[in-house]
C-alpha cells in the first residue's frame, strides 16, 4: 500500500532538490576545454562510426517521444549529437584539417543550450536506434554528451545534488545504512525474516531509496519471494543502494565508485548472484556497465528482480496463484527492456498469474518510454515536457483496455503516478514484484 503522504513529501522534496547542489564555478573557456576533453576521450571506433554514418534522414524524430509529443524539431535525436559530431569533425576525423576551416569550435553557450537537449529531453531510451536505417546508437552518444556537460559543470541542479550526496555521503535522498536498518526493523515487526548483513550468502539483494521511502511493499515482496524460495540471501547495509546517480548525471568517477561499492560487497560475501530491485537504470549500470566500471569481468551474475522472477517461473521453481481475471498490461522500462534485454521474463510471470494479459502496441523492445527515465523525472523544469511525453504512454495503455499497468521500475512508477495525479487517470499502477509477492503459491 503506497503512503500518498510520503509520495507528496517526495514530490515536495524533489521540487527543492536543486537548492542543495554545490554548483561548479568555471569560466567559459574551462567549460569548453573540459567538455572537449571528455568527448575526445570517449570517441572510439564505435563512436566514430556512429558519428560518421548519419545521413540526416530525420527518421529518429519519429521514434522520440519528446519530438512526437511536441513536434519541435530541436528535439530530433540525431541533433543531440551535433556538438560531439563537430568536435569529432574538427579534432579526430580524417578530414579534420579541412573541416576546421568550415566548422566552428563548440562554445559554452552551445553547451548550455545542449543541457536541455541531453538531460531534460532525452531519457536515453534508445528507441531512436530502432528507427535509424544506419543503426546508430544515439543513446550512447547522448550519454557521452552528459559526461561532457558534467565535466563542464553543467549538470542540472537536481541531478547534481543527488550525485553529490551519493558521492560525498554514500546516501541518496538522505537514505543510508541507518534508514535501511529502520526499514528492515519495520519489516521484521510485520513478521518478515530479513537477513541483514550476513557475512556470507549466495544471493546479494539490492534495494533502492525509492523502495525504502515509498515503495516499501516492493521491498517486502522481495523479502517474501527470497524466503519463499528458501534462498541463502542477504541485504547488506554497506552496499544496498542500486541507484547510480553517477551514471544518470554523467559523472563517471561517481558511477565507478557506486558500482565498485556493490561489486566489493558482493565479492566479500561470496555472492553468486546479485539481484537488482525495480529500478530501471540500476540494471544496465551493474549488468552491462558494471564490469567496465570494476575493471574486470564480474564474478557473479546480475539479475533484475523481474528477470529473476521470470526465470524461476520458467524453470518451474516458482509457482504463482491465479491472480484473477484482471485485465493487465505491462510497461517495459527502457533500461530494463530495450537496453537491458529483460523482455520475456516479466511476461512469463504475468502469464503465470493467469490474468487477462494485454500487450501494448507497440510492445517490448519497441515500447514507448514513459518520459521519466534517466533522471528526467527529477528535473523540475522538465515537468511540462515530461507530461506531454507521458500522454503518448497513457494513450498506449488506454488502448489496451487494461484496468492496471504493471511495471518493474520505480522511476517509471513515480512518473506514472505523477501523470496519474495530474490527469486523474483511472488506470491502476502496479509493481510486478508486489503482484508476485501477493500471489506466491504453496
Amino acid at each position, binding site marked *: 500500500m503506497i503512503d500518498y503522504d510520503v509520495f507528496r513529501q517526495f514530490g515536495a522534496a524533489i521540487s527543492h532538490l536543486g537548492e542543495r547542489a554545490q554548483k561548479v564555478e568555471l569560466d567559459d573557456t574551462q567549460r569548453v576545454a573540459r567538455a572537449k576533453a571528455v568527448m575526445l576521450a570517449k570517441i*572510439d571506433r564505435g563512436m566514430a562510426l556512429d558519428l560518421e554514418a548519419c545521413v540526416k534522414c530525420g527518421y529518429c524524430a519519429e521514434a522520440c517521444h519528446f519530438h*512526437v509529443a511536441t513536434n519541435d524539431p530541436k528535439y530530433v535525436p540525431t541533433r543531440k549529437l551535433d556538438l560531439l559530431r563537430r568536435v569529432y569533425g574538427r579534432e579526430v576525423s580524417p578530414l579534420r584539417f579541412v573541416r576546421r576551416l568550415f566548422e566552428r569550435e563548440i562554445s559554452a553557450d552551445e553547451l548550455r543550450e545542449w543541457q536541455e537537449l541531453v538531460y531534460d529531453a532525452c531519457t536515453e531510451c534508445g528507441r531512436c536506434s530502432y528507427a535509424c536505417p544506419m543503426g546508430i546508437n544515439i543513446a550512447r552518444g547522448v550519454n557521452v554528451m552528459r559526461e561532457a556537460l558534467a565535466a563542464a559543470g553543467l549538470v542540472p541542479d537536481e541531478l547534481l545534488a543527488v550525485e553529490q550526496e551519493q558521492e560525498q555521503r554514500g546516501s541518496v535522498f538522505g537514505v543510508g545504512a541507518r534508514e535501511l536498518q529502520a526499514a528492515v526493523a519495520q519489516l521484521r515487526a510485520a513478521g518478515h525474516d530479513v537477513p541483514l548483513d550476513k557475512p556470507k550468502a549466495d544471493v546479494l539483494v539490492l534495494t533502492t531509496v525509492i523502495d525504502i521511502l515509498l515503495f516499501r511493499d516492493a521491498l517486502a515482496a522481495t523479502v517474501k519471494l527470497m524466503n519463499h524460495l528458501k534462498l541463502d540471501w542477504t541485504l547488506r547495509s554497506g552496499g544496498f543502494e542500486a541507484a547510480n546517480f553517477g551514471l544518470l548525471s554523467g559523472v563517471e568517477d561517481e558511477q565507478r565508485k557506486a558500482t565498485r561499492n556493490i561489486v566489493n560487497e558482493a565479492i566479500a560475501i561470496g555472492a553468486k548472484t546479485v539481484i537488482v530491485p525495480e529500478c530501471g537504470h540500476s540494471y544496465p549500470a551493474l549488468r552491462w556497465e558494471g564490469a567496465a566500471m570494476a575493471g574486470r569481468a564480474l564474478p557473479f551474475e546480475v539479475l533484475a528482480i523481474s528477470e529473476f522472477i521470470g526465470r524461476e517461473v520458467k524453470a518451474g521453481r516458482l509457482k504463482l496463484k491465479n491472480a484473477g481475471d484482471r485485465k493487465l498490461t505491462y510497461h517495459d522500462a527502457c533500461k530494463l527492456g530495450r537496453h537491458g534485454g529483460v523482455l520475456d521474463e516479466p511476461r512469463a510471470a504475468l502469464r503465470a498469474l493467469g490474468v487477462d494479459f494485454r500487450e501494448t502496441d507497440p510492445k517490448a523492445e519497441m515500447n514507448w518510454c514513459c518520459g521519466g527515465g534517466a533522471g528526467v523525472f527529477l528535473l523540475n523544469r522538465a515537468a511540462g515536457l515530461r507530461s506531454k511525453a507521458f500522454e503518448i504512454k497513457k494513450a498506449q495503455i488506454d488502448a489496451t483496455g487494461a484496468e492496471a499497468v504493471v511495471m518493474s521500475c520505480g522511476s517509471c512508477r513515480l512518473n506514472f503516478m505523477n501523470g496519474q495525479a495530474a490527469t486523474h487517470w483511472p488506470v491502476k499502477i502496479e509493481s510486478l514484484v508486489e503482484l508476485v509477492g501477493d500471489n506466491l503459491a504453496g
Partner: protein
Amino acid sequence: MLRGMELLELARGPLLTGSLTVFFAGLLWRFWSIWRLGARAPLAAPRSRASGFSTVFTRMLPRRGFHASATLATVNPYLYHLGLAVVAFGYAPHIAFVERLIGAGWPALPDWAVYLAAGVTIVSLCIALLYRLTDPVLRLISGAGDYFAWVVTMLPLATGMALVTGDAASDPVRLAVHLLSLELLLVWFPFGKLMHAFLVFPARAQLGRFFARRGVRA
C-alpha cells in the same frame, strides 16, 4: 582552349584514372581513420552469443511500430536508391565502360527500363530535396554537405540524360561532361555523406552486435 575530343580524352584518360585512384584510396583512408581509433572489448558477460549480423539486412525495411510517417517520405528513398543502382549497373553503355576497365561485364537491362529508372530517380531526388528544404526537422539538421551530396549525385544523372537525347555520338563534349560529373562524384564520394553506402554495413552490424549481446532483437 580544349577541343571536344581533347576534353573527352582527358576525361576518359588521366582524370578517370585520377578520380578512381582518389575514390579507392579515399575509401581505404576513411575506413582506416575510423578503425585506427580502437575499441575496448565489452567485459560484461553476454546474454546471447548471437552476432546480431542480421540487423545489416533487417534494417533495409522500415520497422513497424513507429509513428506513421507520410508514405512518400518512406517510399521515396527506396525509389532513388534502387533507381541509382539500376542506372549505374544496368545500363548497357555503363556495363561496356566497366568492362573496358576491368575486363568483366554482366547482362544489361533494356534501355527503356533504364530510362524509366533514371526519370523516376531524378523526380525522386527532387522530391528528397524538396523535403529537405521544407520539412522543419530536415531543414534544421541539414548542412552544406547534405546539399552538395545531392548535387554531385544529380549531376551524372542529368548529364547522362542529356546524352540520350539528340545525336550525342557526334558531340564529344556532352559525353565528356557526363564523365567529368561522374569523376566529381567519385572524388567526393569517400569524403562526404555518400560514404554511407559503405559505412552502412559496419554501422548496422555494430548496433546489431550491441543489442544481440543484451538479448534484444534489433
